């Protein structure tokens, strides 16, 4: 038997808010439902909401669930949590809130709470007439787990959002890998990749922080450098030409100095840097840090 909390068992044996909500065509009231899961996956939830249109508020919530003990308890819990909330407040509810309300869930059953969060989003997005599914990107990309129809993108998002560390945890949250198991190696690859990316960004952040600290100390210690406007612009141009551009050119990009307004340096990214997804980082780390370091610590850099 699973180690279920008393709350889980109580809400399973005595579920509240079960059933559908009929649309009574009342004024200022809308009835909508959202659904997730599938009979193939072994659990599915249809969440019904009654919304007060003028206040954007949930008047009533009911559920119909096909699933295990904790899926039924999670659905019940979700309806209790969201009743009376505005839709925006409800959208802030996540699976951890549901698990917490239940006094915790066994990790292997976390997907039940995820299902609640997803049904809630589905219902609200449907009500708001947002055609695009919230996590549209989940449906794109390679199908990683065929048994449960989970894409690589979805696995990646869950790893990041829930800070998952093991393949087992991935299975517990989104079931991927819980069937034939033939996708387990693939999940592990994604996990390793995400962990590596996370480690890299921590390294970058750490080295930037160190540099900034060093720069700050240097500023504190060094006599404040005073530069005339002309000296400042010349020095900026010199650092850009000699130290920054060669690096960017090597990566297929380039930068030119557009203007200097007080301590605001305006640059223009060209070549591969222009429109590159990480151009923000380039400006922040590669250009601004360098200019502050070499010219004046008070400089800010903006790309135009």
């Amino acid at each position, binding site marked *: 038997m699973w180690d279920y909390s008393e709350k889980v068992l109580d809400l399973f044996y005595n579920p509240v808010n079960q059933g559908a909500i009929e649309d009574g065509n009342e004024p200022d009231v809308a009835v909508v439902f959202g659904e997730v899961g599938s*009979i193939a996956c072994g659990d599915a939830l249809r969440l019904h909401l009654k919304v007060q249109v003028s206040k954007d508020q949930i008047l009533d919530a009911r559920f119909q669930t096909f699933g295990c003990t904790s899926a039924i308890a999670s659905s019940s819990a979700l309806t209790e949590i969201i009743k009376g909330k505005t839709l925006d407040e409800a959208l802030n509810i996540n699976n951890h809130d549901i698990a917490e309300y239940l006094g915790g869930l066994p990790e292997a059953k976390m997907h039940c709470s995820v299902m609640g969060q997803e049904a809630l989003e589905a219902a609200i997005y449907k009500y708001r007439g947002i055609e695009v599914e919230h996590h549209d990107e989940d449906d794109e990309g390679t199908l990683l787990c065929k048994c449960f129809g989970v894409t690589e993108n979805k696995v990646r998002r869950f790893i990041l959002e829930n800070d998952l560390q093991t393949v087992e945890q991935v299975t517990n949250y989104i079931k991927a890998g819980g069937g034939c198991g033939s996708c387990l190696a693939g999940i592990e690859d994604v996990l390793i990749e995400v962990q590596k990316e996370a480690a890299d960004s921590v390294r970058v952040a750490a080295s930037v922080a160190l540099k900034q600290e060093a720069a700050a100390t240097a500023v504190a210690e060094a006599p404040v450098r005073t530069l005339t406007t002309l000296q400042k612009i010349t020095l900026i141009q010199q650092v850009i030409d000699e130290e920054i551009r060669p690096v960017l050119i090597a990566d297929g990009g380039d930068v030119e100095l557009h203007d200097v307004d007080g301590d605001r340096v305006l640059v223009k990214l060209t070549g591969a840097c222009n429109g590159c997804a990480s151009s923000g980082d380039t400006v922040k780390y590669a250009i601004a840090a360098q200019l502050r370091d070499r010219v004046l610590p008070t400089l800010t850099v903006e790309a135009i």
Partner: protein
Amino acid sequence: MVVYLDNNATTKIDPAVLEAMLPYLSELYGNPSSMHSFGGQVKTALEAARAQVASLLGAQDTEIIFNSCGSEGNNTAIHAALAAQPEKRHIITTAVEHPAILSVCKHLEKKGYDVTYLSVDRQGQLDLMELEAALTGGTALVTTMYANNETGVVFPVEAIALMAKEYGATVHVDAVQAVGKLPIDLSRSAIDLLTLSGHKLHAPKGIGALYVRKGFRFRPFLLGGHQERGRRAGTQNVASIVALGKAAAIAELDLAQGTDPSKGSVPSEAALRDLLQRELLATIPDCEVNGGNSPRLPNTTNIGFKYIEGEAILYMLNREGICASSGSACTSGSLDPSHVLMAMGLPYTILHGSIRFSLSRFTTEAEIQHVLAVMPGIVDRLRALSPFNNDQADWLQERDVALAT
């Protein structure tokens, strides 16, 4: 009231079995390998138990090796069979074996063996033509279960063995669920190796035996001392072996009486199983017996209740004091639907809501009546919570189709 209907997971120790083993947990603690009479009397008990187990199987005493469990028996059998014919690299098994077979086969695949997994049909039955087509001169081993732990479906092991022998393959039968429930006579069989486990026939957990046909080239799996004629090292678990012997003797008697119409008015476990199955089907709509049209163990019925999920049913049953199972004991606790029911190609509506009831000779009619009294209400309650019923299931089935394409 505890109604224990999970006997394919494990059984209660028969009080007579417990009584037989107790002295070997207290005053009779000698080592059967010792060269003194204190150990000698223990050895006598051990050999008596061997004779009892051999008798149940129609085997010779020297063909029985005691070990710790069914998993050990299965692992040993496969390794022994392969070691005996190292030049052959092909194994045939079925898609519905116990994990103690499937995991070993998967492992061997990684080591370069070629494994054929025979499929089963909607009734959980094998197709002997498929076996015939898979057999070659390079097949080292055919390993199959006698009866399936989840559905109780019985395979035609004697026919399988004869067919495999024509190609010179070794035949291993995992008879863990069948021993004590079905008659077996290995003296007239082509089976080379057969596994059994004590706790499935009212002996304790942690004791098992492997039958090895006389003359079979056996390579031990566990090396060390000379116990079990050098075939399985390790000081014997005497008390449990004595228990297994006693359990085997009781089972043999029981099987003989099963065919005796004078047994009296107490319904047999087969009759109770039939009652349970018949009444559940009669009172609950939308359910069916998985493998119900195949020959099955007399004690097992596996029923799919459409539109609801197995774990939820088990928790509801549990509150009524009823112990059953969804899928096998070894796979419950994981998220995947039973590989056995999947291999049978059951629709998802049935697959996820399947419950196994497995009886024993200790099951009473009152217990079955209790299940019959509560089960319809449980199914009704869960179906009332479910978004599915006969005609509303479309929305998710559409989604399934989309996912599959």
